[in-house]
């Protein structure tokens, strides 16, 4: 084993020994950092879950055109021709009333109720992809299509889904900003804790430097200390967030069971989990680097 690996092994062992020497203080430090990390982790899980739910909704600009219940297939063909001819119409999909009933039975809990009905309560309908999402232009389209014979109702229901999507994108950005601030807080916490370690070991550092330790040699065990603290805090934060999500999902499950769509918070995927662990370890490393470098400059200034 070469000297470089041995110096790193010594530094790692030294960092572990220091952490184990003060178990109470180490645990408190890890827990404080973990709370700061758990908040954005939980936020990311929540926003991603909402985003996934919104992604399942149709947010492309489209208009639903419902015919009257007595409209025949011939009436539908005439309306379809008129819809296709409209300049704002990009694509037209006909949904026959029978198919609409089947879909309703398949996607809701109303199958039993619908099976007992004497006749199909749903009309023929069209889903029209429009070339515009502009509210004023859509209002004009809606007015024009309401004039068509046998057209009962025209609705542009995608708007709420689109708005929800915008909100989740906004939440994502707010979360990124918050995560950045909390990352700075982690840097500060780790830096402060490492600074205390450096000050405590000042004599040892000075003696080591006198007998040949480079700044890198002095810094190394503290960097491992910071990285290990960050890694442990990352793991603790993930455990905290996972526990909270399980607890929240139990409530959400009860809350959304009566809806057609059951919403639940999905925990982070394995690559994100790894990124959180590596990220917190890196924050610990960087926080330690900044702190030790600053203290070494102060020592050099005093000597």
């Amino acid at each position, binding site marked *: *084993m*070469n*000297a*470089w*690996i*041995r*110096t790193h092994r*010594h530094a790692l062992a030294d960092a572990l020994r220091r952490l184990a020497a003060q178990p109470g203080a180490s645990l408190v430090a890890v827990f404080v950092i973990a709370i700061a990390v758990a908040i954005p982790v939980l936020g990311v899980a929540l926003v991603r879950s909402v985003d996934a739910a919104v992604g399942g909704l149709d947010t492309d600009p489209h208009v639903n055109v419902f015919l009257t219940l007595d409209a025949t297939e011939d009436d539908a063909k005439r309306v379809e021709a008129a819809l296709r001819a409209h300049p704002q119409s990009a694509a037209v999909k006909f949904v026959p009333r029978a198919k609409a009933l089947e879909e309703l039975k398949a996607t809701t809990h109303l199958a039993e109720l619908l099976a007992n009905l004497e006749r199909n309560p749903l009309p023929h309908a069209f889903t029209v992809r429009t070339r515009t999402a502009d509210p004023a232009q859509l209002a004009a389209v809606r007015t024009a299509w309401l004039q068509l014979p046998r057209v009962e109702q025209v609705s542009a229901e995608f708007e709420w889904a689109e708005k929800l999507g915008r909100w989740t994108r906004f939440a994502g950005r707010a979360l990124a900003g918050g995560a950045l601030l909390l990352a700075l807080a982690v840097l500060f916490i780790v830096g402060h804790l490492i600074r205390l370690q450096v000050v405590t070991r000042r*004599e*040892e550092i*000075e*003696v*080591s*430097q*006198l*007998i*040949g*330790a*480079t*700044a*890198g*040699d002095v810094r190394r065990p503290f960097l491992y200390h910071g990285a290990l603290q960050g890694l442990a805090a990352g793991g603790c934060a993930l455990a905290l967030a996972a526990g909270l999500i399980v607890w929240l999902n139990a409530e959400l499950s009860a809350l959304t069971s009566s809806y057609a769509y059951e919403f639940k918070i999905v925990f982070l995927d394995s690559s994100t989990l790894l990124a959180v662990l590596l990220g917190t370890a890196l924050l610990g490393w960087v926080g330690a680097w900044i702190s030790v470098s600053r203290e070494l400059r102060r020592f050099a200034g005093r000597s």
Partner: protein
Amino acid sequence: MIQFSAVAKRYPTGYEALRDVSFEVAEGELVVVTGHSGAGKSTLLKLAAGIERATRGSVIVNGQNLSSLGETALAVLRRHIGFVFQDHKLLFDRSAGENVALPLRIAGTASDETGRRVRAALDKVGLLAREKALPITLSGGEQQRLCIARAIVNRPAILVADEPTGNLDAESSRSILELFLSFHRVGVTVLLSTHDESSLALLGGRRLALRGGLVESADRAGEAVPG
């Protein structure tokens, strides 16, 4: 091996410890630096060991001009120069063995090799039986021996000692100085400071007398006084 050319050292406080000092120490020589307190002995030794940097002039050790070395290179050079501090600079929360092992740990020496060298160094200074003892339990003379063991554990070609008998009784002083003589006899270059006349008589070697940061008198090479 060590060459000072017109070296001056001014500290940030403005105090000028050395002014225009020039001298040479050949490989395997023993040179004793003398002078009263404030003459510049400690500064000269720290410059020779790469602990301080000269303000003017050049300090060349083993062919390397220390002024041109970066901080990392200077630190690495210090690993090859054993320094015995006047105030020992021991770590009091570490055992005697751990104190001696510190330079080897810094250099990344293997554990088994570290153990062997530490025991050899402690044996050389007569402290092998105190390997596990904390420095606080050692006498002044033993602490100085421990400091010497730490200085020689890396097998340096140059040994620098700043007033190694400063606070010791006559018997301890004598045994410490005999240690330095034994290193000198096996070819180690020794640069040592003292203001104690009895030490001078025992050590012999070449003299370099400082006064007020200047060389007051210096034996030329080959004018060493027999110890």
